[in-house]
């Protein structure tokens, strides 16, 4: 039996509360800033309790009423981010399911080569080959398109790797049973493998959703017109270039709106997400 001491219990709680406060403070401060009028934020120190300007800030952000985002409503950016994120998430999960199925359940010439061709992409994030990737996308005429903003980010093997690892743990008896019942490979895939993969798919959904939603460098160079800015890039534009003081309440309202969808997904799907993260080691 491990001893239970009250003072140590209090110490543990104290450290956790301190940690949680430090971690939550930046987000809390952003929320507070988004509820005040710009001039209230200019005083030193800025107020630390929420103000009454919430509705004005958020509607200015969403509808493009701020001085720096008059032509860039955040509602549009959220939509662009959402479309890109969904293409990345759904696209990655679907093509990875198929390719992992192929490398695990089939034997064919050059299989090992295909395997490595896919898995080497794990090594080089898009940031590393940013210039040449941009030129390829430009040559294909995909600048400022949803496809150009999302498909190059699908070219990575994280999901394929997870599904491969998972498929390898599926009992072989299931394939034998399927064969006895006269089921072909696609039937086996659809009726047995897919239902078994639901948990892995849920975990990957969270990880890829965050990955897609939080993209910055790639859209920064591929989205050149304002109506194709995802929210991360748009946020930077609303912040302005430093010539004039930014309207912090609108900026922070935009930041809150940018944080909301991924935070929602993470908190809601916490269990699967933690499992997926720790299982894939990604």
């Amino acid at each position: 039996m491990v001893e239970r001491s009250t003072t140590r219990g209090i110490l543990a709680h104290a450290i956790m509360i301190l940690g949680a406060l430090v971690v939550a403070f930046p987000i809390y401060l952003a929320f507070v800033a988004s509820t005040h009028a710009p001039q209230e934020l200019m005083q030193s120190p800025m107020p630390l309790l929420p103000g009454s300007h919430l509705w004005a800030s958020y509607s200015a952000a969403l509808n493009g009423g701020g001085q720096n985002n008059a032509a860039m409503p955040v509602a549009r950016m959220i939509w662009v981010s959402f479309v890109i994120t969904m293409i990345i998430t759904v696209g990655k999960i679907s093509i990875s399911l198929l390719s992992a199925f192929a490398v695990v359940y089939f034997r064919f010439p050059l299989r090992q080569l295909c395997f490595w061709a896919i898995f080497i992409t794990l090594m080089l994030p898009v940031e590393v080959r940013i210039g040449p990737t941009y030129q390829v996308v430009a040559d294909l005429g995909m600048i400022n398109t949803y496809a150009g903003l999302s498909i190059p980010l699908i070219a990575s093997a994280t999901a394929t790797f997870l599904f491969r690892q998972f498929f390898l743990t599926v009992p072989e008896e299931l394939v034998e049973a399927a064969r006895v019942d006269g089921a072909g490979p696609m039937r086996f895939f659809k009726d047995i493998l897919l239902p078994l993969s639901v948990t892995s798919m849920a975990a990957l959904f969270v990880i890829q959703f965050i990955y897609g939603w939080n993209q910055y460098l790639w859209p920064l160079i591929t989205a050149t017109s304002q109506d194709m800015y995802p929210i991360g890039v748009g946020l930077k534009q609303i912040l302005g270039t430093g010539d004039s003081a930014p309207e912090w309440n609108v900026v922070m309202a935009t930041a809150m709106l940018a944080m909301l969808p991924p935070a929602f997904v993470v908190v809601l799907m916490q269990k699967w997400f933690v499992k997926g993260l720790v299982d894939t080691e990604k």
Partner: protein
Amino acid sequence: MLAFPSTRLSHDKRVASFRWSRMEKRVFFRATWLPWVLLAPQLLIVAVFFFWPAGQALVQSLQQQDAFGSSVSWVGLDNFRALWNDSTYLASFQTTVVFSTLVAVLGLGCALLLAVFADRVVKGATLYKTILILPYAVAPVVSGLLWSFMFSTSIGVISWALHRLGFDWNHLLNGDHAMALVVMASVWKQISYNFLFFLAGLNAIPKSLIEAAAMDGAHPWRRFWTIQLPLLAPTTFFLLVINMVYAFFDTFAIIDSTTQGGPGKATSTLVYRVYFDGFRAMDYGGSAAQSVILMVIVIALTVVQFRYIEKKVHY
């Protein structure tokens, strides 16, 4: 459609020829065109958006292009030589090493502390955990914005408090302050990830070990040093590599939204340079050469990581 390996021998040979083969299916489907159809989408995307650009980077790193892109000439290793002789590039190498080390060490330290205590508390554990995983959901660009807002020289709450304490904070002029700011924003963003892995690692340690040590009279502090920490070594090493990769590549947005590499070049890391030289200074050859150097670094880090994974299999 379904086939078993023809002989036992061929199976064993596969095992011998390739490490990972031990983890392969004994039972599989046999088809000529179906696997290719299944692989086609991924292979196509990987070929167009990975191998083509990676090849381009290699080629361009050996070329020099004029500012308007009208003429291209082969220059051999000149781009690499130019980088080698460029003191600011070597300085950004050093900046990256300092930055990554700080992010990895501070990030792992804070996360380990929180995980050890989170492992002990029972009441309210879910609430603490939920708050601590929130930064994972926050985009790096937002993280950078939040921290530069708190430390803003004109309206920042923390910089105001520091000023009251007699400390003049100015990350726009002071390179060390700027570095501290990007490190804090990066550590904050990564703390959730480290925390979750440490917590999972602590959960995996058999309770009986801890109980046995407690019965032998070992206090929590001693139990931590002699049991938990050594057993967390594989997790720590894995996280160390992941955090280095994170600090190298995923912090671009944080730097761009806080300091933009400044003041001077105080927070200009290697990835920031690739972007700046390629897209702002329009030096494609130099940028491609930097990409190639980065590729070599990532491959080296990945090899280290794979070595570790292989080792873990043996335990």
